[in-house]
């Protein structure tokens, strides 16, 4: 294998270094701002109930979804006031972690 393929350039505040990158460094995801308007699944689970539909106005603390995960029925509530912009899931869906289930605006 050529040297170019094995090594890459790492730039720090003090200069440039030729280096090998580790797997976890290459696989890291870019940082993004967390917004309370996007209701993400915080662990893998199943949708038991959806309490809102697109266009509904919700208040902070209103129940949005009944989410079964790890032997527990979790009541997912709105973190802020808003209007339901999108519902990306359906009852019975199995969702992995990190899926935006409901979007508010």
């Amino acid at each position, binding site marked *: 294998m050529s040297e170019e393929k094995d090594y890459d350039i790492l*730039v720090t505040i003090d200069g440039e270094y030729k280096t090998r990158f580790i797997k976890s460094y290459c696989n890291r995801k870019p940082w993004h701002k967390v917004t309370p308007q996007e209701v993400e699944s915080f*662990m893998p689970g199943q949708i038991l109930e959806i309490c809102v539909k697109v266009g509904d106005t919700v208040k902070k603390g209103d129940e949005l979804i009944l989410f079964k995960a790890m*032997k*527990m029925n*979790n009541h997912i509530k709105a973190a802020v006031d808003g209007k339901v912009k999108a519902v990306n899931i359906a009852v019975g869906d199995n969702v992995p972690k990190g899926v935006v289930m409901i979007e508010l605006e």
Partner: protein
Amino acid sequence: MSEDKKSLDLQQRKERIYFGGGKKAIEKQKAMGKMTARERIIALLDEDSFYEYDIFVEHDSHDFGMQDKELPGDGVIIGTGDICGSPVAVFAQDFTVAGGSLGFMHARKITKIMDYALNMRIPLIGINDSGGARIQEGVNALAGYGEIFFRNTLSSGVIPQISVILGPCAGGAVYSPALTDFVFVVDNISKMFITGPEVIKTVIGEEITGEELGGARVHSELTGNAHFFAHSEDECFGQIRQLISMIPANNTHKAEKVQPAAPLAEFDITKIVPDDPTMPYDVRDVIKALVDDSEFVEVMELFAANMVIGFGRVNGETVGFVANQPAAMAGVLDCDSSDKAARFIRFCDAFNIPIITLVDLPGYLPGINQEHAGVIRHGAKLLYAYSESTVAKITVVLRKAYGGGYIAMGSRHLRSDFVFAWPHAEIAVMGPEGAANIIFRKEIMEAENPAEMRQQKIQEYKEKFANPYVAAAKGYIDAVIAPEETRKCIEHALRVSKDKNAGRPKKKHGLPPF
């Protein structure tokens, strides 16, 4: 006459130093919503209890024009005083003096008070508000940090060490707080990072504010670096005083006993935990139903909320609680919650604080993320901490205790001294649904109506194993108790284990998986 002159001279010298970095710098500090270093110490300690040392220390910078500058106290105040009548050692960095930058003498003052604290076996509280190393002093500043880290490590487990972040704390400076037992942060004031927003922007091109990168919320919710979050400096000092009043001054003492009190009547222990194992509830209500005056001091409230840790008193004696929180992520064990609980258990063990574990968890969180994040390594910390600790350990299984989670949460097998279970506890290797699918896979597949057969087998498994009596039959559970008996049983267990002496093989030190 000359005596008078001399005392006047002393007064004037002191006042010049009390004035810190001068009017302009103090105004700037106030504009940021911050107190001065001296005001902070006064707000933290009992009235008129502060004695200051090394007030006339001068800095040791000789280059880049620094030799002509006057830096009162070299930007740090050290001394001893009282909190609730018990002595503590304190240092506070003064941001108004050269940005609280750490130079050679600045570090010498800090290490001096750290040596005091360790030799006198009293708690150390460090108030951090510093721009970082004083670059003009070069490697001498770095040496100072190293000396501080070394002393933090020496003191670890001997005296409680508390760090208060009331301003920037960047670069190498962050590692002293990271080595201490409890880190206190205040919203909009505390900032901690290794490389700041400017460096990140220059090198990586990512843009972020200091608050988003390493503010109080970030360290309380995401990184787990901070243990206590406050909205104001005053609230923060109140939290520190409360914590200090609950923990012992050093590792040879027990925490001071206070007048016992009953829990408040509004926390009725028989009405908090729903029988239905899929219903969440707040485990902190159970803790409040068990502790004196229902007063629970929660540690790391915002980080890994699926595990609750903190201090309370039972019959006047300080105890540490470790509890699964069914209200957050079903109370699963994962990387962060294991890490959080393990460190807390080791603190309690080091400072002779009995540990009470409340169990209600479905097990470890499955998932690719968790496995790749190292849940094996982090989960092992919890097993290590429980097994290693020799303080009194009391475990109460409130409801679910499944699989590896059952073993990890202060089980008999890791040498809990007393293990109680409530009558509707479910202690088994896995949940009925999962277990039935595996054990009766063939029967279910071959049945005429697989769904019906499945339900029937789940029920069968539930009846056989989802109870505390299988574990009790082997003596893994000492007693199955009614919820309302719990406090009495804990009180009794604490009394019995007052002089507990459980040895461990002698060694230089163990090798916990961190």
